[in-house]
């Protein structure tokens, strides 16, 4: 029998279709991961319930999930802004680090004190993240240098620069030579709520989502960005300055990622240290990809991933499964999420004699 398939473009389903596809792919991933759990001698259903209970079953779990969601939302927004223009910012991780460095400089070394500290940290992080990404923006707009390569490689520079600062000039003098900065004063920290670690950064993230929504959906500039993204040649023909728009959109994208760095040091870490962001900037790419054009989508997908990351702790806590299990688990879910994206846009059609002939 001749078993052949053809990839066909599918008519776009509505947002409901997308959301159902995402949920379905998570369930398929859970199903496959279930075999891993069975092999480890753990009942899958019990494990999944425990993940949900860990992440959402108590006010503490919810607060920790929101804490984890915060940097994912902000970096996800950063990457999605550029995605609208078909610009790929793979450098949110490095821009986050630069934002964190700038905010730390304000908090520890600038001499700014009192109620001005947090706004100054915000501005510094915004500028630092923006400047860092603007290098890639300039290279792309002016000389057509691929922004994927530039933003990616600048991540390593940013992380090593941070390492230089914490191993060198910014090292805490009272820290027994350990590579961390001194802790921030209270003025440089976000408020925390409900006797938990939930901090103002979460509300800042929601505010960013709203601001991005308004900028992209309700302004002429947002329309231009979308127009250039869907058809650069036509946009240029219509008189839009595509080079400038590319530069600005990458700079904005980096500036938003810089805010994530500010939020992490002011809300959670209260100092600068190695391993500030365990890959948030890369997770953000997946978030932006899944959420596509929607700022609300970024918030929802970030929250789902937050549940997964926080709930994943329970696999170790309750069953003593090795840490590699949590990684494999997350990898499976991301794998099926990305696969679902393919099936949302395309369908496989069996090629039969009739349709062929």
């Amino acid at each position, binding site marked *: 029998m001749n078993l052949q398939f053809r990839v066909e473009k599918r008519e776009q389903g509505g947002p409901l279709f997308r959301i*159902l596809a995402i949920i379905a792919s998570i369930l398929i991933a859970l*199903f496959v991961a279930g075999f891993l759990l069975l092999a480890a001698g753990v*009942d899958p*259903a*019990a494990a999944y319930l425990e993940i949900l209970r860990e992440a959402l079953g108590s006010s503490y779990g919810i607060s920790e999930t929101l804490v984890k969601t915060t940097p994912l939302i902000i970096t996800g927004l950063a990457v999605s802004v550029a995605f609208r223009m078909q610009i790929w910012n793979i450098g949110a991780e490095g821009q986050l680090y630069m934002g964190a460095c700038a905010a730390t400089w304000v908090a520890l070394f600038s001499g700014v004190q009192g109620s001005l500290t947090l706004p100054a940290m915000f501005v510094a992080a915004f500028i630092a993240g923006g400047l860092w990404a603007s290098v890639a923006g300039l290279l792309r707009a002016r000389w057509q240098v691929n922004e994927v390569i530039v933003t990616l490689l600048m991540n390593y520079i940013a992380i090593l620069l941070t390492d230089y600062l914490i191993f060198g000039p910014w090292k805490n003098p009272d820290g027994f*030579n*350990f590579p961390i900065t001194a802790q921030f004063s209270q003025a440089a920290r976000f408020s925390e709520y409900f006797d938990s670690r939930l901090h103002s950064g979460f509300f800042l993230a929601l505010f960013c989502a709203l601001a991005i929504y308004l900028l992209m959906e309700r302004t002429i500039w947002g329309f231009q960005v979308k127009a250039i993204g869907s058809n650069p040649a036509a946009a240029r023909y219509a008189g839009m300055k595509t080079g400038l728009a590319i530069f600005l959109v990458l700079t904005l994208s980096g500036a938003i990622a810089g805010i994530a760095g500010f939020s992490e040091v002011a809300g*959670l870490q209260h100092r600068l240290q190695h391993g500030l962001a365990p890959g948030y900037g890369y997770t953000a790419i997946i978030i932006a990809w899944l959420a596509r054009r929607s700022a609300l989508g970024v918030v929802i997908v970030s929250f789902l991933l937050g549940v997964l990351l926080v709930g994943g*702790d329970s696999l170790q806590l309750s069953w003593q499964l090795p*840490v590699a299990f949590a990684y494999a688990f997350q990898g499976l879910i991301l794998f099926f999420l990305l696969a679902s994206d393919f099936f949302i846009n395309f369908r496989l059609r069996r090629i039969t004699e009739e349709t062929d002939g």
Partner: protein
Amino acid sequence: MKKFLALLAAAILLTACTSNDQKPTTTVAPTPAKAAVEKQIKAGFIYVGPVGDAGWTWAHDQGRIAMEKADYVLPSTFIESVPEGAEATRVITGLVKKGHNLIFTTSFGFMDATLDVAAKYKDVVFMHCSGYKTADNVGTYFGRMYEPRYLSGLIAGKMTKTDIIGYVAAFPIPEVIRGINAFTLGVRSVNPKAKVKVVWTQTWFDPGVERDAADSLLDVGADILTMHQDAPATLQAAEARGAYVIGYNSDTRKFAPNAFLTAPVWNWASVYTKTAEEVKNGTWKSQQIWWGMKQDLVRLAPLSDKVPAEVKALVAEKQQAIIDGTLIPFAGPLKDQTGREIIGAGAALNDGALLGMNWFVEGVQGTIPK
């Protein structure tokens, strides 16, 4: 679309059907067992590396397993590969919420997270390894690893032919510097010509980086290596190049059957068993434990057959002297790298000077980043 919905429905049904029977397995005592007539210990451990690192974390886990032998100790829990910093706070809190009443955090970088969580849960006893901050319910524990390091230096000093010994070191913090200095003092007490070359890796556990550092030391003529690292990469480098190696953390001779001479090793069971007993009896008080070979927290692993008999005898004699307190590795006269005298004959560095040590003794080749 229909297929997705069908799968969705099937998966939901599957989850719903199996979940009900399984509830009992997921329940964990929600409150600490302190209300019980006899206090039972439910201990939790936070590890910085994987249990399979064959080094630092593995040694702690051996201590945990030994502690569990006591009948009042319930099965304990460990969480491995926890990042230092903000993530640790969540993981430690998770252990407390699961009813653990004695928590060991086994890396320096967990210090602030331990203190933060301890401030919220006064009924739980926390023990932080290698830090310097304490609270009413937070004690610290660490070992005088410099004692067996000094002894291992005697072996290296006696057995080197090139008079160059390589030291793969993690971070330039006092704990590591102290080990390098003690080792060098051991080396130079039997071989004043020998030099100890130090390479920093700025990581506790990264087999690739550690291997590169070890190879670079072999390239400049070192014929014996030692390390302050958690991965066995240095041992493997020495084995591959026909050099000798002195390990660290645990007895890992299986990684380098020909090269391995000995290793200064941890015996965390001594602290863990005693702490569990004290918490059970209600006699536990916050203190800073810093035990040595006398209390059996640190040891020198059995010497390999490659070590000549007279060196073995020398090490045995000096080891007894350290246990008896007649040999103090950091006794004067001590000079720093520049030849400046730090303390004269008849004096010895006190614990404060050891805990804040940020200078190299004479004979170390390397720099401490300031």
